């Protein structure tokens, strides 16, 4: 093994030849740079992946239809995001605002209407959870990444995707980013977020 490493890795490619591994690294770097060019240079969205679990929700809410097909802004429904630390789930009346007329024949909408007529809100399951000792505020993050940068508000979903992944491609939301401390801290480091423990720990 050691011998192999010595001969294959150092001797053979010692004189300027491209090593397959370094070539691969370079390609990955280049690719990741290309994919991240959609954003201005001042923001470096966090990387990282998480293999989330499929969460069963009372109604299988299709984010993709709302966002991709109908082009509804995230903050139209998650209206508290820019005013509070939590983004919030829209009141059921907001759903019914459209769905009194739209797509009333679909089973999911009928289920929603049932809730509405019973006078109940569906009990959604929380997908993106941070530990209870963490203080996270949507308001400040949106301010930094959207409003302070004059980022077009209609594209806010790209900013949401930093932490929530491409919700626009999902039906029911699924956690695809680790949302753990190392991940948060990494992004804070890159983008000049606060490094003070007490900023996020309560």
């Amino acid at each position, binding site marked *: 093994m050691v011998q192999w490493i010595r001969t294959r890795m150092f001797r053979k490619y010692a004189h300027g030849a491209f090593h397959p591994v370094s070539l691969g690294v370079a390609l990955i770097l280049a690719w990741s740079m290309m994919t991240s060019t959609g954003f201005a240079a001042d923001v470096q969205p966090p990387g990282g992946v998480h293999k989330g679990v499929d969460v069963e929700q009372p109604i299988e809410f299709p984010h993709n239809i709302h966002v991709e097909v109908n082009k509804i802004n995230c903050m139209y429904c998650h209206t508290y995001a820019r005013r509070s630390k939590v983004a919030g789930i829209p009141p059921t009346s907001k759903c019914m605002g459209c769905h009194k007329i739209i797509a009333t024949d679909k089973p999911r909408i009928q289920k929603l209407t049932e809730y509405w007529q019973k006078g109940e809100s569906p009990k959604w399951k929380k997908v993106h959870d941070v530990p209870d000792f963490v203080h996270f505020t949507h308001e400040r993050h949106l301010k930094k990444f959207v409003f302070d940068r004059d980022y077009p508000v209609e594209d806010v979903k790209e900013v949401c995707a930093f932490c929530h992944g491409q919700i626009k491609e999902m039906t029911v939301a699924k956690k695809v980013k680790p949302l*753990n*401390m*190392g*991940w948060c*801290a*990494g992004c804070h*480091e890159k983008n000049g977020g606060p490094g003070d423990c007490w900023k996020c720990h309560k």
Partner: protein
Amino acid sequence: MVIEKDINEQIKWAQINSDVLRSMENPRKAYWITFFVCIAMVACAVVAEIYQYRTGLGPSNLNNPHMWGMYISTFVFWIGMSHSGTLLSAILHIIHADWRKPIYRFAEAMTTFSLMTAGFFPIIHLGRVWNFYWVVPYVSARGVWPNFRSPLSWDAFAISTYLSASMLFLFIGMIPDLAICRDNARGFRKKLYGALSLGWVGSDKQWRHFRKTYLLMACFLIPLAVSVHSIVSSDFAMSIMPGWHVTSFPPYFVAGALYSGCAAIITLFIMLRYFFRFEEYMTLAIMEKTCKLTFAIAMVWTYLNLIEFAATWYGHDVYSKEVLIAKATGPYAWIFWTMIFCGSVVPFALAFQKLRRHMPTMFVVSLLLNLSMYFERWMIVAPTLSMAMEPHQFYIMYASVVQWAIVFGSFGWFGLLFLVFVKVFPSVSMYEVKEMVFHRRRLINEEAAAKFHRRSGDPQPGAQPA
């Protein structure tokens, strides 16, 4: 006056082998009883610890000013205990005090085992035990590190280093003996010793390497031993608390450590001598030397105590002075005076030959010295906490059953390790006793001895100085 021999130099080498190997065989009833008593003690501690783990530290009765209690004082006690082995094996090895040879092995085992006991306590006393590894620096995605300024994180380094070094030292010193064991064992034991003796055959080359390694380890271990207790003392000395913030704490701790270690050696010396019939090897002469050493250390410790008291008394730190007075007159006064009596007065028994040679007396004395040393640790930890700067929070603490059980269990744990040790490993170093006997035999012949000791240029024995 006849100088008593440290060891009977006429003893046969085979006799040494068989005596020591015999001690490793056929545990008697007394052994098993002690063994199970120890297990029961450990079980007490385990139950207590599980309870404490699940409920929090509340049941230990620790309280607001007394955030540290017997866990920490017991920790310091066991760390202190560990210094004796190093003293006997490393320091005496380097200064060529060869009377150490029959007794250093178990002393060294004691070092290792008391460290293994001590190591538990900083972990047990944590509020969130399950996160104890956070004091160890490791690379994590969170990018957080231990606080390198904190004496507690130094503790983690110091103890782990000292533990690994002393274990290694113990092991290396045992290799030639393990080979003897291997040659005399059968079955599973043969395999075990075979593996442990690392192919020792006693060749010249092996001996040469062995001696060098052993010396090197000894040299390495001495500063380590001094530093480890200095670091433990800095748990207290680095604080600003009156009675803790004492400049002389590192030497004071080291002296106390050596003291308690020596006292423990006397205790174990007597027990081994009695139980394993090691009178031939653990002779009264060696006992006397150990006692004298202990006496010297006791006096150093007393002196350092006096220095500390005087420095506080004549110093201008009113808080420290208050704590000092509280030690002598407050709720812990009886502990303080017991400590002074047992630590500074009782050792005078060691100054009398008659008493030194009377094993039951020495046994009691050594236990008293150990008690004093335990109390000393308590007197370091508790009074300062009970009476620091803020008078509103002056309070005392009575240890609960949980705390007692865990402390009690630690003695069981130590005993258990030691009991296993004496049956698995030779508790007297065979090869070194042989060395000693060899040297002594040569010393009988004065001429040979002179020759042996003479360096070039030394005057011949009996010759008039020029």
